[in-house]
C-alpha cells in the first residue's frame, strides 16, 4: 500500500484543488442529507421563530393558536421596554460586559504571555493549578464568593449592588489564558531576540510586536467573554438585590412573573435580551465558530 500512497496523495491534492475551483455540482444522493439538515434546522430554529412571532401578537392572538400575527404589534416592544426598565438593565449589561472584556484581555494576555515565553520557577505548576479551576463547578464557589462580596470573609466592606461585584470575579479565566498561551507559543523566538537587541523588554515586545500579530485570538477571546458575560445569570442574581446594577438576564427573570399571562410582552423582553448577542454573532460568526472549534479542539 505504501507504493500506492504517493500517487494517491498527489491525485487527491489535484482533485481537492479542482473541487475548490469548480462550482457546486448538485447530486441526487445529496437530497436525503439536505432534507435531514433542513428538518433539523427548522426544529432548532423553531423556538426563535415562535419567540419573534409571538412578540408581535396581540394578547388575544397569543391564546388563539395563531402562527403569525395579523398585523405586527411593534408597540409590544415599547410597552415591555418601559414596563420592566429594560433601558437601565440594558445599559448595565453593556457596561458590565465591556468592563469584563477589558479586564480579561489585560490579565489574560499578560498571563498567557508569561506562561508561553518567560521562564520562572514554578511556572508550569502554577499553570496546571489555574487550569484545574476549569473543573470546579460554579455551585461550589457561589456561596463562599457571596459571603466574600458581602465582606464577611475578608473585611473589605460589602460590594453588594456595585459594579466591581459583578465584574472583578470574572476578570480572568484559565480558559482564555490557555488560548493566549497556545497562540503565543507559536511566535518565533527570533522576533523576541531581535526586539531585545533593540532594547525592548517583555512588556514592550508583548504590546508592540505580539499583540498586533494576535488579532484572531484576541477576537476569539473577546467574543467568548462577551457571550459568557452577557449570559451570566446566577451570580448577578445573587449580588444585585436592587435594580441599580441588575443586568438584562436577571431583569428578564424578574419580568417573567411581572408579565404573567402577557406572553407577547415576555417574548418581546426575550427578544430584547437575545438581540445584542445575535447581532454580534451574525456579524462575526465565521471567526466565532472557527475560533470556538479550534480552541475547543486543543482543549
Amino acid at each position, binding site marked *: 500500500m505504501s507504493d500506492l500512497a504517493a500517487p494517491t496523495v498527489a491525485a487527491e491534492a489535484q482533485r481537492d484543488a479542482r473541487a475548490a475551483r469548480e462550482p457546486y455540482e448538485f447530486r441526487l444522493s445529496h437530497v436525503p442529507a439536505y432534507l435531514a439538515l433542513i428538518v433539523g434546522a427548522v426544529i432548532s430554529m423553531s423556538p426563535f421563530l415562535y419567540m419573534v412571532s409571538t412578540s408581535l401578537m396581540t394578547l388575544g392572538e397569543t391564546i388563539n393558536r395563531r402562527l403569525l400575527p395579523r398585523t405586527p404589534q411593534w408597540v409590544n416592544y415599547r410597552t415591555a421596554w418601559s414596563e420592566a426598565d429594560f433601558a437601565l438593565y440594558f445599559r448595565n449589561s453593556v457596561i458590565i460586559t465591556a468592563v469584563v472584556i477589558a479586564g480579561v484581555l489585560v490579565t489574560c494576555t499578560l498571563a498567557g504571555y508569561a506562561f508561553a515565553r518567560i521562564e520562572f520557577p514554578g*511556572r508550569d505548576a502554577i499553570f496546571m493549578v489555574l487550569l484545574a479551576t476549569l473543573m470546579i463547578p460554579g455551585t461550589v464557589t457561589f456561596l463562599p464568593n457571596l459571603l466574600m462580596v458581602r465582606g464577611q470573609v475578608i473585611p473589605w466592606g460589602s460590594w453588594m449592588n456595585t459594579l466591581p461585584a459583578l465584574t472583578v470575579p470574572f476578570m480572568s479565566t484559565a480558559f482564555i489564558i490557555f488560548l493566549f498561551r497556545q497562540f503565543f507559543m507559536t511566535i518565533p523566538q527570533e522576533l523576541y531576540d531581535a526586539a531585545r537587541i533593540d532594547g525592548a523588554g517583555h512588556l514592550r515586545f508583548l504590546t508592540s510586536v505580539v499583540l498586533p500579530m494576535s488579532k484572531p485570538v484576541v477576537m476569539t477571546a473577546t467574543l467568548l467573554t462577551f457571550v459568557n458575560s452577557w449570559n451570566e445569570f446566577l451570580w448577578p442574581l445573587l449580588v444585585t438585590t436592587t435594580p441599580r446594577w441588575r443586568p438584562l438576564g436577571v431583569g428578564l427573570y424578574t419580568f417573567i412573573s411581572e408579565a404573567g399571562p402577557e406572553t407577547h410582552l415576555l417574548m418581546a423582553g426575550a427578544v430584547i435580551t437575545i438581540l445584542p448577542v445575535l447581532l454580534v454573532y451574525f456579524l462575526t460568526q465565521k471567526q466565532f465558530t472557527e475560533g470556538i472549534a479550534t480552541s475547543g479542539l486543543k482543549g
Partner: protein
Amino acid sequence: MQTSTTVKRRPRVSASKRREWLTGYLFVLPSALIIGVFGLFPIAYAVYMSLHRWRVRKGAFVGLQNYESIFGDWWGALAFFGGLLMILGAHWLWTDAFRREEGTVPFVGRLLGALALLASGVSVSLGWRLMTAEGDRRFLAGLTRTVYYGFTAVPVQIALALVIATLLFQKLRGQELFRMLYFLPYVTPAVAAAAVFRSIFSPRPERPANTVLEWLGLPPQQWLFETRPVSRILFGGLLDRLGIELTGFWAGPSLALVTVIIFGVWTYTGYNAVIFLAGLGNIPKQLYEAAAIDGATRVQQFRHITVPLLSPVTFYLTVLGFIGTFQAFTHIYVMRSPATRDAIDTASVVIFDTFYGLNNFSLAAAQSVVLFLIILILTLMQNRFFGRRVVGV
C-alpha cells in the same frame, strides 16, 4: 536591560535572570489573584463552612455532622462511593491486570472483571438504598435527577451532533449557513431561551408543544407541570396489565425533567456538531482514499476510520457535557414554577434552595462539596474508560 549587565555580581542567579523571574511573576499576578481569590479559595472555604453550623451567621464547629445528615448512614455512603470506585477496579481487571505480553487478556481476567463489576453494582445500589432511608432526601433525589439529565442528554446530543457533522462534511452547498443556524442556541442567553421554552411547553392546549401533539392525534400533556414519570404516561396501561410497578430510580425521569433534557440537547447539539466538524476536517483524506482502494464500504470507513480518529473529540465533548449537565442551573431555575414542585430540581438547584430558601449555609456547602466529588469521580472514570482508547493526533 542595560542596568542588568552592570549589577550581576550575585553568586548563583544572575540579576538579569532575577529580573526575568520577577517579570514572569508580575505578569501572572493579576490572573493568579483573581482566580485564586474567586476560584480556588472558595473551595477551601466551602469545606470550612461545611464543618460548622452556619445559618446566615457562623456557629459552632460540628465536624462531619452536615455530611452525616446528607448521607444518613455512613456505611451507605461507604458502599456507594466504594462501589463507584470499584467500577474503576473492575475495568482495570477486565483490560490490564492479566494482560499478556502479546496484548490478549485471559479468561480469568475477564471473569474477575465481570464479577467485580457485578459486585460494584450491588454495592452502589445497596449503599444508595441505605442513604435514601435516613439521609437528605431532597438532595439525593436531586442527584438522581442530575444523573437522569446527564446520562440522557449527553449521549443524545453527541449522537445527533455526529450525524449533523457528517452530513455537513460532504461539501454541501450552504454548509456555513447550516453551521451558523445549528450553533445559534449555544450563544443564546439561557434565561431568555428558557423563558421561551416555558411558554412552548406550557400545559395550555393552544401552546406549540401541545398543538404539535394535536396534529399527531395525541392527547395534550402537562409538560413542565407533569411530575409523573414518562414511563407511566407512555406505558402505564401496559405496565399495569403486566403487574410491573416501577418505583424509585427505575421509574425514570418525569415529563417535566424530559422537557429540561430537551432544552439541554437543543442548546449543546449545535456546539458539539461544530467541534465534530472541525475534528472531521483534521482526518487525513488519504486514509479514506486508501480504504476505498482496499474495498472498504462507506459504513466500514465510518466505523474504522472516522469513529476512532474522532475519539479524542468525542472524549472531550463527553467530559465537557457531563461537567456541564451536572452543574446546569440557569435554564432549570427559570423553568421552575410552583406547579412543577420539585420535579426538575437537580442537585445544583437543590443546593441553591438550601442556601436561598432554607438559609442553611453549612448544609448547602456540604452538598456542593459532595456534588464536586461526584463530578471528580465521574471525570476520573471517563478518563479511565475512554482516555486511553483515544488515538493521539
